[in-house]
């Protein structure tokens, strides 16, 4: 109560003053009324001012009052220089907003614990090995269910193992009219929900009893998000039935809705349907790795013994499987057995997006942190210059008794104003920017759902950042301003160079940071250009991809009927078919043997294609012929140039034959009928692998590759969708995309990095330029008298210009050299993000150097102009 009255009194200090004055006045009046002599009363009373001050300090909080006064004073200081304040606040706001956005993304993807009980005891199993195709170290997290079962039994009592399938898109129908829609499905262990301590929002969740027998538990739990999107939170959703697209016999019943915050175990993806692991068709297949393994340690168990037990099971399993390899080479088998099992903390879940974007996000956040430092240096220099202008005011304050801390507070409060306003604007920027970045990464075909709440974690980061920034650019100038010697300052100036020396050091730092940002941005932009201009080996233009399924394996002739029908439609130029589109991420691989010999080293890729596929993809035969309708699998094959080079030594391969070794050890004889140039198969970065194109067999799934006559193939897609069903009523289209979209998805991360890094390098250069301009201009302003005298005794303009800029330019050189060194050091950490570009490439080094030189020259021009135009007469008379 008393504290509260003191706080409220603090904010109405003048009223408190008036009341005290009134009470003291009434005392004097009472004394005079009693007949005492007025002079005597006043003398007996003593100094009313002193009494008022003593009383006042009792009735309000002195430090709060002085703070309040400083806050008001600081605001007035800002308003006095609206333009510089606005520039400072906006540049800081951009940098703070970018840092906050980066934090939001990193937090949402990598740090934020899953909303489950005790996320700290959750681990994910990783396996480190050597890649089969390229021989590089590779980490994987996929396992087979039978292996999972053995592992789970081995650590029973010490840890619970949870199988979580990769979240993938499935086709499904709710009604009987076969209207196909898509949802994200995740097959998980039934005991995942109780083990993670999750509760249903509606109905019930899966339990261990829903996950006992393969194919016997047709139940589904839907996510809250899906419930809201698809069913508008209809409580009658419980009991609805759905049919999974590919398998007409799997009729699932929805039994419950998961809690709102649990969106699956993969940050970046929101799962729609949770199905029991037992309902995955691959659950008994020892050759199909389709799940991640989460390990939940029991409270008293240590990770290492558990890992060792799991590793023993893993090794035995691999040895067992290696015995069955008839196709693989020795090197392949030894690499297979040398895989190492790791237990990785997974409080934040595990997802492919984490793997793809971890380094990219960290690199970006370092860039934006550097931009924040650059902006802070500008503000620090601004504050230093202003403190210099206010040296006399500070000296006056000191000499009438202000403490040193009081002056520090005065300047810091002003910095806090800047930081606070910048943070507020930056928060708005981050509000928009973080989802914007997610939007850049997300594509129609591969949507990214990153939950980005603005909660206490983000708030705490924002406040901490604002405080850090305040001290970063405010403390130096504040301490410097408060260390002033009143006598010398009032006389008209102590050492004016000291202040400039601090500014120059800051300029060097700023240029160094700017150089690093430019340099790294250059690397990212070059990487993107190299990747985007990477010849794919086929033409993606005007190509529409229609993915279609059939309920049971259908012979090629049935698929041909559909293709024929599509060909007859307007707007369609050519129609061909493939097992999947090139570069879509799908792949099929195996081993081959030449001339009946043993298995060749290294994997080869396969793709089923129809006759006319080469034509549709605009791939021109180098030799031989295209596949024909009469060709069948285990007969004819087309190979790429890499294949011909590696296995036939570059000789004309047409007419030669080889054998494919299938997993059961059978040898399938294939004769080369055609040779084509290399085309990108799965990835733009990896070296091209030997690839074999073979005719189709009967199948349930096909991608129609349609070259359209329209520049916007997607528009045609919706027209073609019903036509597929018209041609064959049991076939259904599950997905429509363009080859261009698929190609662009290959470079999403690189484009993001290039775009954002380029943007921030431009901002960094602009800010550094402004900073240079400010310091040069300030230097000229400070040396006006000196320059005036020099001009008066006949100095030339060139001489003046050199004097004004030499020091600052040498700082720029020092900064650039430091930046170069820093940049070279940093390349090591981002190597995985780069493609065909080295830190020592001339353009990568020249661009930042030229950018900084240009910025420095541009920034120096106004200051030099001002210096040479100083009129000595006016200058010397004024002082």
């Amino acid at each position: 109560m008393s504290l509260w009255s003191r706080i409220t009194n603090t904010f109405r200090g003048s009223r408190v003053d008036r009341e005290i004055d009134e009470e003291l006045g009434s005392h004097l009046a009472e004394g005079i009324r009693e007949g005492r002599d007025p002079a005597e009363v006043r003398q007996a009373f003593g100094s009313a001012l002193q009494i008022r001050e003593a009383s006042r300090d009792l009735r309000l909080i002195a430090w709060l009052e002085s703070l309040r006064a400083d806050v008001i004073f600081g605001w007035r200081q800002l308003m006095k220089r609206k333009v510089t304040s606005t520039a400072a606040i906006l540049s800081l706001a951009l940098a703070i907003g970018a840092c906050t956005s980066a934090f939001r993304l990193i937090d949402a993807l990598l740090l934020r614990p899953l909303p489950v009980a005790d996320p700290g005891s959750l681990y994910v199993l990783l396996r480190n090995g050597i890649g089969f195709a390229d021989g590089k170290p590779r980490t994987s997290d996929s396992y087979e269910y039978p292996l999972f079962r053995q592992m789970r039994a081995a650590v029973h009592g010490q840890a619970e193992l949870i199988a979580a399938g990769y979240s993938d898109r499935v086709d499904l129908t709710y009604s009987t009219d076969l209207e196909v829609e898509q949802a994200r499905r995740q097959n998980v262990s039934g005991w995942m929900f109780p083990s993670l301590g999750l509760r249903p929002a509606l109905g019930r969740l899966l339990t261990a009893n829903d996950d006992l027998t393969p194919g016997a538990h047709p139940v589904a739990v839907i996510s809250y998000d899906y419930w809201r999107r698809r069913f508008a939170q209809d409580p009658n959703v419980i009991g609805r039935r759905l049919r999974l697209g590919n398998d007409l016999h799997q009729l699932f019943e929805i039994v419950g809705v998961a809690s709102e915050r649990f969106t699956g175990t993969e940050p970046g993806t929101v799962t729609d349907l949770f199905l029991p692991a037992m309902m995955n068709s691959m659950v008994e297949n020892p050759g199909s790795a389709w799940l991640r393994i989460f390990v939940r340690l029991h409270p008293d168990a240590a990770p290492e013994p558990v890992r060792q037990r799991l590793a023993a099971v893993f090794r035995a399993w691999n040895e067992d499987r290696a015995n069955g390899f008839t196709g693989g080479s020795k090197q392949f088998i030894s690499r297979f057995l040398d895989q190492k099992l790791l237990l990785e903390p997974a409080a934040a879940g595990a997802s492919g997006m984490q793997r793809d974007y971890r380094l990219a996000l960290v690199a970006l956040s370092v860039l934006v942190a550097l931009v924040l430092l650059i902006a802070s240096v500008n503000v620090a220099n601004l504050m230093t210059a202003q403190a210099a202008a206010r040296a006399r005011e500070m000296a006056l304050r000191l000499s009438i008794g202000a403490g040193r801390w009081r002056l520090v507070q005065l300047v810091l409060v002003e910095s806090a104003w800047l930081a606070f306003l910048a943070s507020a604007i930056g928060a708005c920027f981050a509000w928009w920017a973080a989802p914007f970045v997610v939007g850049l990464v997300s594509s129609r075909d591969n949507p990214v759902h990153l939950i980005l709440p603005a909660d206490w974690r983000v708030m705490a980061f924002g406040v901490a950042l604002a405080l850090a920034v305040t001290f970063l650019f405010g403390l130096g100038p504040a301490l410097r301003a408060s260390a002033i010697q009143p006598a010398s300052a009032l006389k008209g100036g102590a050492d004016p160079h000291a202040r400039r020396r601090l500014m120059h050091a800051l300029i060097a730092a700023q240029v160094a940071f700017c150089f690093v940002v430019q340099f790294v941005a250059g690397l990212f932009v070059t990487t993107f250009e190299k990747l985007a201009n990477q010849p794919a080996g086929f033409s993606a233009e005007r190509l529409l991809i229609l993915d279609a399924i059939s309920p049971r394996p259908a012979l090629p002739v049935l698929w041909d009927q559909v293709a024929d029908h599509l060909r007859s439609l307007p707007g369609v130029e050519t129609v061909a078919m493939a097992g999947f589109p090139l570069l879509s991420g799908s792949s099929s691989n195996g081993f081959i043997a030449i001339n009946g010999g043993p298995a060749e080293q290294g994997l080869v890729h396969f793709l089923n294609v129809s006759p006319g596929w080469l034509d549709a993809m605009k791939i021109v035969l180098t030799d031989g012929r295209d596949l024909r309708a009469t060709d069948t699998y285990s007969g004819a094959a087309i190979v790429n140039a890499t294949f011909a080079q590696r296995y036939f030594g570059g000789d004309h391969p047409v007419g030669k034959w080889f054998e494919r070794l299938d997993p059961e050890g059978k040898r399938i004889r294939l004769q080369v009928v055609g040779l084509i140039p290399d085309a990108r198969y799965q990835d733009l970065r990896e070296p091209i692998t030997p690839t074999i194109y073979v005719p189709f067999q009967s199948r349930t799934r096909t991608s129609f590759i349609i070259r359209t006559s329209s520049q916007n193939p997607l528009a045609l897609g919706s027209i073609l969708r019903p036509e597929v069903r018209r041609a064959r009523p049991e076939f259904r289209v599950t997905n429509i995309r363009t080859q261009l979209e698929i190609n662009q998805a290959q470079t999403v991360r690189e484009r993001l990095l290039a775009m954002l890094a380029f943007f921030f390098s431009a901002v960094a250069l602009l800010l550094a330029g402004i900073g240079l301009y400010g310091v040069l201009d300030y230097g000229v302003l400070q040396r006006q008298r000196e320059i005036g005298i020099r001009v008066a005794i006949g100095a030339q303009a060139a001489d003046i210009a050199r004097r004004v800029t030499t020091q600052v330019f040498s700082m720029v050189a020092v900064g650039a050299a430091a930046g170069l060194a820093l940049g070279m050091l940093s390349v090591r950490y981002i190597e995985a993000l780069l493609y065909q570009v080295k830190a020592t490439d001339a353009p990568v080094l020249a661009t930042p150097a030229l950018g900084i030189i240009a910025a420095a020259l541009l920034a120096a021009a106004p200051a030099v102009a001002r210096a040479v135009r100083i009129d000595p007469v006016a200058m010397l008379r004024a002082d």
Partner: protein
Amino acid sequence: MPKPDSLQGSLDLLVLKILSRRPGLHGYAIMSAIKDWSGDVLRADEGSLYPALHRIEEAGWLRAEWLAKDEGRRLRVYRLTPAGKKQLSDEESRWQIVTTAVNRVLRTV
């Protein structure tokens, strides 16, 4: 050597005691009461009375209010709060203990 009229830390006690007998006095009246009731021996320093009053008020032992007088003049008058009453009895008993002890020392030495 302090003057004989020095209050020596007993100002709070006197103010509380006076206001417990005569609630609603203003500062000047309290000062006069200290002088009159002590038989002109004790004098509160006129200036330092007010910071003391404000301090006691902030401690929550006194409650102040403005009393309108003629010609728009206002007087700030003080009353004891319940906490002030308790404080008074505490201080009175402490005063007794101290004076008894001091007297005992004076007698024995």
